[in-house]
């Protein structure tokens, strides 16, 4: 395989399959793989090797914590408690002997507390205005759970869930991605340019209280234009989440990604099917209603009549400058992807 005939090297193809390429290169690799039978064969070879290696599983029974570990734990806990007591005593002595500092310290604490209160209020106000600020609202999901909680152990179930986003006439010929330990991976190659996958909680706005909700499973099928221009945002967020970045870091990098043109603007005609009756969008609405989504560069929602009385169009605050400069309109449809009638919205 020469680089003259292929847009990607063989090693790059392997790195793509391993989820090790940066977003832009991964998108290029994905597009090339769709069109290159030779690379598809090589990819199948790599997958075959990995699959066969998995035959070597090591059986391990349930083993409790050994007595040695228990003893070491006890010792550590006792040391920790002693250290805490010593620290407290030292602190008390210092505070007693230097009581005159207490008044000054109290004044400083009040000042700092006042400052923090004001800062927090400003931040929350920013978040409620949809400005993309990272609001630290009281939430049941304050931080990321272990990665295992976001993965679906049954690969076939994830494939089926991803496909349920769109009618079979579309999803049966779509590329299917599943989430692995290192990001989204191709489970099934497609033929029609659509890409279906199950998004996780970090597709939510950054100020969402459920940004880390590990129960969230959002089946989506992107049309070709959205697969090229919206899906990279999913990859980007996923890569950063799995790399352990903070929300602030993620927001900064997304902003930089758009500034550097690493992340694309929505292509004309970019849209997505979300017609699964088996998804779980959040704790409040469960699987919601079947709908379609349409993506644009930041757009005045009044141009679509979105959110007006009796208008079927709503604006989804998923992106809306927080920080992705994208407006997303949602239109409910009458049936689930399996053709059954959905309840009225």
């Amino acid at each position, binding site marked *: 395989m020469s680089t003259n005939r292929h847009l990607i090297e063989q090693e790059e193809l392997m790195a793509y399959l391993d989820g*090790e390429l940066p977003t832009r290169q991964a998108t290029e690799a994905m597009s090339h793989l769709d069109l290159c039978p030779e690379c598809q064969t090589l990819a199948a070879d790599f997958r075959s090797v990995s699959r066969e290696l*998995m035959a*070597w599983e090591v059986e*391990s029974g349930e083993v409790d*914590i050994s007595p040695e570990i228990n003893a070491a*734990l006890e010792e550590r806990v006792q040391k920790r408690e002693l250290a805490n007591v010593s620290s407290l005593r030292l602190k008390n002595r210092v505070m007693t002997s230097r009581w005159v500092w207490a008044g000054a310290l109290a004044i400083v604490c009040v000042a700092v507390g006042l400052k923090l209160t004001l800062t927090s209020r400003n931040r929350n106000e920013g978040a409620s205005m949809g400005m993309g600020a990272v609001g630290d609202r009281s939430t049941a999901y304050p931080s990321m759970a272990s990665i295992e*909680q976001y993965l679906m152990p049954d690969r076939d179930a994830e494939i089926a869930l991803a496909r349920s986003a769109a009618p079979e006439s579309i999803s049966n010929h779509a590329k299917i991605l599943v989430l692995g330990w290192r990001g989204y991976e191709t489970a099934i190659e497609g033929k029609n340019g659509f890409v279906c996958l199950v998004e996780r909680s970090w597709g939510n706005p950054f100020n969402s209280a459920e940004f880390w909700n590990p129960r969230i499973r959002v089946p989506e099928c992107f049309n070709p234009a959205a697969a090229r221009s919206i899906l990279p945002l999913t990859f980007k967020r996923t890569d950063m989440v799995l790399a352990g970045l903070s929300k602030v870091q993620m927001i900064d990098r997304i902003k930089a990604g758009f500034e550097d043109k690493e992340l694309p603007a929505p292509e004309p005609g970019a849209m997505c099917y979300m017609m699964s009756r088996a998804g779980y969008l959040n704790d409040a609405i469960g699987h919601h209603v079947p709908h379609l989504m349409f993506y644009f560069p930041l757009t005045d929602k009044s141009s679509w009549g979105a959110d007006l009385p009796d208008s079927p169009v709503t604006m989804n605050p998923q992106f809306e400058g927080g920080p992705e400069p994208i407006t997303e309109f949602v239109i409910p449809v009458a049936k689930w992807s399996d053709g059954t009638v959905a309840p009225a919205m």
Partner: protein
Amino acid sequence: MTSDEALMLEFQGGSRAAFEELFARYRKPLYGFFGRRLNNPERADDLAQETFLAVIRAAHRYEPRASVRTYLYGIALKLLAAERRRFATSSAFAQSAPEPKTDGNPETVLWVRQAMEKLDARDREILMLREYEQLSYSDIAELLRIPVNTVRSRLFRSRLTLKGYLELEAKTNPALRPSAGQPHPGRRGMQ
């Protein structure tokens, strides 16, 4: 639900429950790490426990610069190296060691192991860290102190080499080869 790193920090702060959760998450993966490399289930179990002992003893030094996953396998690699040094001076050890139990077809497992053993030792370690421990290229590079590009090129080489071995083996003993299209339970690597 809490991330590994948050659990580790809680454990640093004295939480026994946090340690127990980490133990529950990583005992089997660590047993698998040693089990595949030592062919001795008893020592594999001992060393998995020793890894956790090392975590307890060094907890105060842990800094959340790397993932807990990488941190644990870093400790495990050091214990493995020490074990191999001991093994090198004690030939009786391996001869008396029983084969580890596996969940897969024993003949298929033997065939995979034999193919793996033909690989260059350094390449094999990179391949195993990627396929079985699910570490990223950069994590492997950090653990083995080699450039990321070296990890990628060796991984590429070892996968192609292994593919050749496996195909040769399949021609020689077609009955041993697992169905190429049939995924194995617990599959988490390249898909």
